[in-house]
């Protein structure tokens, strides 16, 4: 205990804080890029998965298999697979790129289910009405289904992104200079592990807690479909 107190002034120097802030920024950037790209790709995956017709059966199966398989593989295994696969193709991809690709692959698998849930929550009659008015499938999706599916998709998608801020800690294993890696480095410099990892945990908390609050607020705000909003408040009140 006195070791920690003795180390406090040396640990909380401006330099160390700047380093921590930088690595926290890297963690956030990695998560944001990976999840945004992954989210976009997940839309494509869900759209392809819903392609009608017998000829598209293999396509649908591939989309289903992708989601089912990557949800069942640990993130650390995905990271290693991406790392060594990319090494065989090119040797000058940065570790940051590799981390973002790994996050993307994972985010697609998880958000695809969220998006599918949102799209399926839209009443089938809406789609039928659009078909009756000769809307194409893409146009139905973009102008009819998605605007109504947003409120169902956004809150869990934010919750997923927030939870992924924490999962990116695993990326430290391949040597990306993010928060956890910085923590290990500081620990190796001789600072007390309790102090270092306590601080690192607090940094993660500072990033994750406000965002998860935002997610919960949005869930309350958007969670109930318009038609049911009054019914829900009557039941609770």
């Amino acid at each position: 205990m006195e070791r920690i107190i003795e180390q406090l002034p040396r640990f909380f120097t401006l330099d160390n804080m700047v380093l921590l802030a930088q690595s926290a920024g890297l963690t956030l950037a990695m998560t944001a890029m990976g999840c945004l790209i992954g989210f976009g790709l997940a839309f494509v995956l869900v759209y392809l998965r819903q392609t009608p017709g017998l000829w598209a059966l293999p396509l649908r199966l591939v989309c289903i298999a992708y989601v089912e398989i990557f949800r069942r593989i640990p993130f650390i295994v995905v990271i290693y697979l991406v790392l060594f696969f990319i090494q065989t193709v090119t040797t000058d991809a940065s570790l940051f790129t590799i981390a973002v690709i790994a996050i993307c692959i994972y985010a697609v698998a998880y958000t695809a289910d969220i998006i599918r849930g949102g799209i399926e929550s839209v009443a089938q009659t809406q789609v039928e009405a659009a078909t009756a008015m000769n809307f194409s499938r893409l146009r139905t999706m973009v102008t009819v289904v998605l605007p109504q599916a947003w409120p169902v998709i956004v809150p869990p998608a934010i919750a997923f992104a927030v939870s992924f801020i924490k999962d990116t800690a695993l990326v430290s294993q391949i040597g990306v200079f993010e928060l956890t890696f910085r923590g290990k480095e500081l620990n190796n410099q001789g600072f007390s592990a309790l102090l270092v990892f306590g601080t690192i945990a607090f940094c993660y908390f500072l990033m994750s807690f406000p965002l998860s609050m935002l997610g919960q607020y949005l869930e309350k705000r958007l969670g109930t479909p318009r038609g049911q909003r009054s019914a829900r408040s009557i039941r609770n009140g």
Partner: protein
Amino acid sequence: MNYTFQYGVVWDNFDVLMEGAWLTFQLGVIAFGGGAIIGLVGAAIKTYGPRPLRLLVDTYVVFITNTPALIQIYFLYFGLPEVGLRWSNEACVLIGLILNAGAYLTMILRAGFLSVRKTELEAGQTLGFSLVQQIRYIIVPHIAKSVYPALANFFIVVLVMGTSIGALIGVDELTGQAINLSTINYRWLEYFSVVAALYVVLTFVASIGLALLGRWAFRVRARIF
């Protein structure tokens, strides 16, 4: 891409990988079981407990769910020796995972406790149910019905995401064995693709088992896929 896949070494060491898979399964079951006990107590306190205890549980849940499991395990693994506690790698991972799963399961089970209406408990009391009977015949069936899918899903998360963290502090579970073996002969892609497949098989077996258990014990129609 000029890389020749050589799966021969992987098959030679397949029994080592299977040992790792067995350890993964054990770690997952113990972590989930321990977490479920914490979760049940935590959720019961959050629903029925006095205010100071509720605040305590809230603090625990908020702090654990907003920090990475890896950091929590590092905290135990690197931090505890400083205060004179030396635990084995397995113990650190298990205790870290149990504490972590406990917080998430508190949140999940809380939803189940909320689905039990007060009037139902009162009806039970009127019929002369003891506390144990109330739990057995009113609370547990409700929780099982309403949160079983979430629980089964979370078990897979613990089994896959949770236990694989152990590899980073030297526990020889499935991922750990793959890292050990591939540092010997650099066949990373081969080992990790086989390990990925093993994880898929392992979790499918677990999913099917859980779905059957849910159907048999709680009459829940759980989804496997």
